């Protein structure tokens, strides 16, 4: 068994990162010019890493499958980014952000990494402000904050409902500045299809030019995978259509361990599925839970009437509404963490209280917020005895200023006015906490191969808190990798350019070509999407919000069956040497069909409930997740052995020295 060395330095929490930075190697500026780095993916982690490394002097090549680096899916993040600035004077601190993240992650993350994340969080805001990111400001011209789930302070910075977009465009502008100087070569519409290992180190990649179909070799002294998460294994998720696991999965097959693949985040507030044609799901930002109240009818007959279309939510009187989050979790109320909120919605819908045609939706209601804001506004404007209509009108304006774009988005998709009727929402796959195993340097089990952002497993444990994904992506890219990569690259100052004519490159290229040919040669009768949907349904039903041993075992059999049929009957139209979107999808779905099995295997192996992983066999009397710290306080890192069912498990024990794991309570 490989020894998993996290390389977290010992000593007090608050000194670990400083101590580590002081002890690792640094490459001198002249030598940085002789070193090449490949960055795959140009989202928050990739763009920030590439820009920062180029600024330091490294020669960087970046790759993305979209037509521009600015389109990476980080752009869709809505709500905000956390930082322990304590601007609100509400007793926030680095420690509190660290503690909230560890607790939110249900005590399945590494303490050292999480503390570092909290430590650099404040720098991220300063960096983004310096780049011209237009964060929300108050009338005094200072940065504004809002609250997110699972915390008791207000530390989330935001740019209306488009924080991800603004942060990504900031990182993209830094990246394009380096493209302009020639320090970064950017390859758009390119997909990485393998990582090349030479003498045990990652030394380059094989990529396909998606326009011409040409297979290319690119050498480098280190490879960074910033390729996001794998939520699209469920077919329906809030991820972009192109988000995929391929780069990470190829790395996994070349020796990088995959950690905690079963940890999936199901986001509680998404627009519900409307029919079989659905291609993706749309998130409604968690920030809405600051002001929206979640409820279902108290009486079953009301729920039935709503489903039948004979009653509307607004017709149900206050006393017949069940604000179940406020009822079950009085201290956090509507702002409980995502996993808790999602399960509570499922519990109510399973019990028969769902409120749309499918029975899988709950209300997110702004009427009390509209009234509250309306009253405040009336008083600010010195309006005496305002009428109800006036209060509602004023309140709607305030709500519109805060969440206008989200409300518009909802109205557009659902075809209903959320200012007048409560929104209908339901949980959907949103984020994957699992990912490539990395040490404190963000290095995978393959030397020279790094994973950043959502692609790695490191900081969120079994559940990520809202507004922490943006924080982690940028922390990794701006403030961690520029330091830690030096420790590896210091050995490469005399290596010289990597020769892509080497046997290892030829072999990898041949394998890539063979796989592409194989996909095209099947010439079956069933389109790729059909297999993807089938896989997604199995994953959602049996490895989704709730899992059990029997279901997971069945899922494994079913996935194998789908995989077998895929390779016998998939229809990929077109050729390999041309722009071919069906071929792109086929390659990605083939990888999802292997990953899905590993996720089920991991979920089966983890005989406890924690965070986003809820095993029905392990719950408390009142239905809360029941952890088993004695047996499962570890990160499960899987080693590829040749087939997805036969992966080997390696355990990294999580040693809690600073926080004592307790039963998470949001009551």
């Amino acid at each position, binding site marked *: 068994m490989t020894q998993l060395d996290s390389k977290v330095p010992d000593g007090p929490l608050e000194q670990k990162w400083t101590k580590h930075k002081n002890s690792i190697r640094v490459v001198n500026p002249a030598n940085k010019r002789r070193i090449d780095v490949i960055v795959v993916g140009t989202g928050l982690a990739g763009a920030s890493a590439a820009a920062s490394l180029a600024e330091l002097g490294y020669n960087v090549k970046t790759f993305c499958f979209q037509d521009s680096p600015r389109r990476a899916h980080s752009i869709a993040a809505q709500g905000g980014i956390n930082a322990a600035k304590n601007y609100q004077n509400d007793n926030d601190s680095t420690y509190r952000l660290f503690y909230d993240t560890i607790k939110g992650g249900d005590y399945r993350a590494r303490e050292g990494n999480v503390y570092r994340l909290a430590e650099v969080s404040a720098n991220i805001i300063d960096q983004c402000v310096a780049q011209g990111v237009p964060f929300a400001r108050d009338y005094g011209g200072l940065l504004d904050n809002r609250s997110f789930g699972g915390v008791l302070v207000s530390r989330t910075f935001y740019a209306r409902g488009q924080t991800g977009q603004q942060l990504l465009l900031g990182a993209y502008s830094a990246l394009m*500045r380096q493209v302009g100087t020639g320090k970064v070569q950017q390859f758009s519409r390119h997909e990485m299809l393998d990582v090349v290992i030479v003498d045990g180190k990652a030394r380059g990649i094989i990529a396909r030019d998606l326009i011409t179909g040409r297979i290319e070799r690119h050498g480098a002294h280190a490879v960074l995978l910033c390729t996001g998460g794998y939520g699209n294994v469920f077919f329906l998720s809030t991820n972009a259509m192109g988000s995929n696991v391929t780069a990470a999965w190829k790395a996994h097959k070349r020796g990088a361990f995959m950690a905690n693949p079963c940890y999936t985040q199901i986001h509680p507030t998404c627009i519900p599925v409307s029919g079989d044609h659905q291609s993706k799901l749309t998130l409604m930002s968690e920030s809405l839970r600051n002001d929206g109240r979640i409820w279902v009818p108290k009486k079953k007959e009301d729920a039935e009437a709503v489903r039948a279309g004979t009653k509307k939510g607004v017709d149900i009187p206050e006393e017949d509404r069940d604000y179940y989050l406020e009822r079950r979790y009085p201290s956090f109320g509507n702002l409980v963490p995502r996993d808790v909120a999602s399960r509570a919605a499922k519990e109510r819908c399973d019990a028969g209280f769902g409120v749309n045609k499918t029975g899988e939706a709950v209300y997110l209601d702004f009427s009390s917020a509209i009234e509250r804001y309306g009253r405040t506004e009336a008083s600010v404007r010195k309006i005496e005895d305002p009428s109800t209509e006036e209060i509602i009108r004023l309140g709607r304006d305030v709500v519109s200023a805060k969440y206008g774009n989200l409300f518009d988005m909802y109205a557009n998709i659902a075809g209903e006015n959320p200012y007048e009727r409560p929104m209908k929402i339901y949980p959907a796959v949103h984020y994957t906490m699992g990912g490539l195993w990395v040490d404190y340097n963000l290095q995978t089990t393959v030397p020279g191969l790094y994973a950043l952002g959502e692609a790695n497993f490191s900081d969120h444990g079994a559940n990520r808190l809202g507004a922490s994904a943006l924080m982690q992506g940028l922390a990794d890219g701006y403030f961690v990798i520029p330091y830690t990569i030096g420790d590896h690259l210091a050995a490469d100052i005399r290596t010289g350019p990597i020769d892509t004519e080497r046997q290892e490159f030829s072999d990898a290229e041949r394998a890539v070509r063979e796989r592409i040919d194989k996909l095209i040669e099947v010439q079956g009768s069933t389109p790729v999407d059909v297999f993807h949907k089938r896989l997604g349904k199995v994953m959602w039903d049996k490895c989704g919000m709730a899992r059990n041993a029997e279901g997971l075992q069945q899922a494994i059999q079913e996935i194998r069956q789908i995989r077998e049929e895929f390779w016998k009957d998939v229809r990929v139209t077109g050729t390999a040497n041309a722009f071919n979107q069906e071929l792109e999808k086929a390659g990605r779905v083939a990888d999802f069909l292997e990953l899905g099995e590993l996720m089920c295997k991991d979920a089966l192996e983890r005989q406890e409930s924690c965070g986003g992983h809820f095993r029905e066999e392990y719950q408390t009397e009142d239905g809360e997740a029941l952890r088993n710290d004695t047996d499962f306080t570890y990160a499960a890192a899987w080693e590829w052995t040749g087939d997805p069912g036969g992966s080997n498990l390696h355990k990294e024990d999580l040693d809690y020295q600073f926080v004592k794991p307790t039963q998470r309570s949001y009551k």
Partner: protein
Amino acid sequence: MKLTLKIWRQSGPNDKGRMETYPIDGIEEDMSFLEMIDVLNLQLVREGKDPIAFDHDCREGICGMCSMFINGEAHGPGRGITTCQLHMRRFKDGDTIFIEPWRSGSFPVIKDLVVDRGAFDRIQAAGGFVSVNTNGNLVDGNALPIAKDHADTAFDAATCIGCGACVATCPNGSAMLFVAAKVSQLSLLPQGRPEAKQRALAMVEQMDKEGFGNCSNTGACEVECPKEISLEHIARMNREYMAAAMTKE
């Protein structure tokens, strides 16, 4: 719903291209426009035919990848939405829908409805940034208060998703709205002021080099912009550019 789709097919940059007709049935009101194309493509693949190539990714109106010219309008009917946010409830049974790619000499067609918008990246690389390195010891984000109205206007400009609808819509194929959005955002913020002149000159120069046309104030771009970016940003860019050009060394 039963519809007739007239779709631009072009196998590659050197193909002349043509409109082809596809009848389609079973379209539901709740479907998005792109889900309707998914249905068509599924049908084409089953028949062993080449599916329609089109760009799309986030399908929630923010990545800027989708780019269809529908019935003569960039992103189709409706204001303030992208193609992926367009729903079939805006059409009715029996409609004929024309679907074309963005048409601009600076956006060459790659295949069918997919065009190359690399020019936008090159304009951005010419000056669409604040020259600040990643810095471990920056001043505190609140050390520089920014008036809320400035921050808000800068934000309005910054919401540009770089989709290219402005170019596709403009009779001159101008990219002024796209370029102005970035120039304006950064010139409104104190962080962007030090290199405001240089930025305006460099971005406009690159825009011209890419072959985009000039602005003649038709205002079509503002109407079709899915983020409803205002023409006032073009005015601000012109001011910046004029000031920079006059005081250039």
